[in-house]
């Protein structure tokens, strides 16, 4: 079991996770992530990963039980390898097209970024047993405290942030389970709730405007 209840109510995710671990998480859970976390914000990177997985080829970084997230990171080349300078979330919907293949075929248990994923991806997460984490947009300083080192960097022909980067992190947070492995999406629920509230909101807006006129 790699999901541990923290004393502050935040659930600790120690990678790798099993399918049962992933399915035990529910939307709204606050989590901290520890272990090797793979990331890229490259569109070509995502397309390449999806194409390789669809052909049955192995990725240069094994994602089974692991995490693959839309976090941007610049890695400076040093004499001994690479030094990660920061982490910062990117908008996940940009990768909607490639994510179903990556979720279904790589064995990944945690994906994430900001803003959520498409309905097709929600279905893939449910089928495969994987969760989506919402990271704090613009929370670079806070998130970067968790960086412990660079485990691997692949596909160096891309710019740094587009490469397939695996960083060792300790307590990467804050993060919220926004789509769980049981078909629940906080984005879908909040959109439905906002749509239901919209007639009242517009009515109140109109009244306030008329009163001001």
């Amino acid at each position, binding site marked *: 079991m790699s999901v541990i209840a923290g004393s502050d109510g935040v659930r600790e995710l120690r990678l790798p996770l099993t399918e049962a671990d992933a399915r035990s998480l529910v939307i*709204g859970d606050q989590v901290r992530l520890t272990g090797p976390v793979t990331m890229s914000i490259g569109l070509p990177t995502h397309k390449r990963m999806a194409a390789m997985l669809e052909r049955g080829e192995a990725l240069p970084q094994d994602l089974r039980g692991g995490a693959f997230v839309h976090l941007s990171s610049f890695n400076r080349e040093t004499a001994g390898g690479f030094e990660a300078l920061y982490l910062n979330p*990117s*908008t996940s*919907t*940009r990768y909607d097209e490639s994510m179903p293949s990556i979720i279904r075929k790589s064995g990944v248990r945690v994906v994430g970024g*900001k*803003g*959520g994923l498409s309905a097709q991806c929600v279905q893939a997460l449910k089928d495969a047993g994987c969760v989506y984490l*919402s*990271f*704090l*947009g*613009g929370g670079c300083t806070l998130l970067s405290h968790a960086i412990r080192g660079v485990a691997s960097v692949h596909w160096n022909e891309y710019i740094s942030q587009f490469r397939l980067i695996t960083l060792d992190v300790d307590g990467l947070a804050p993060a*919220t389970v*926004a789509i769980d492995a049981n078909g629940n999406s*906080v*984005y879908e629920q*909040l959109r439905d*709730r*906002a749509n239901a*509230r*919209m007639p*009242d*909101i*517009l009515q*109140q*807006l109109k009244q*306030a*405007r008329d009163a*001001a006129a």
Partner: protein
Amino acid sequence: MAKEQVLRPFGLINPEPILAAMETRLLDAINATGFGPMGTGGDSSAMAVHIDYAASHGFMPVAVSFNCWINRRTRARIYNDGRVERLE
């Protein structure tokens, strides 16, 4: 113009009373949606609304700029026969 308003210091009240009142009404309406920080639920979806305007003739484009949301580009080719080809 929208980007200029993003850079208006937080807490600085719009000097035009009509716009200042509009900003307050829209902020209340936006926060009533309940999307919250990062769209994962809560009372604060927006910290502020900043509005500016300019005169125009015959058309009135509106630009909205909100926090780092990168899904903002698209490309299309419009042909003489009215056909629109989406390129991305």
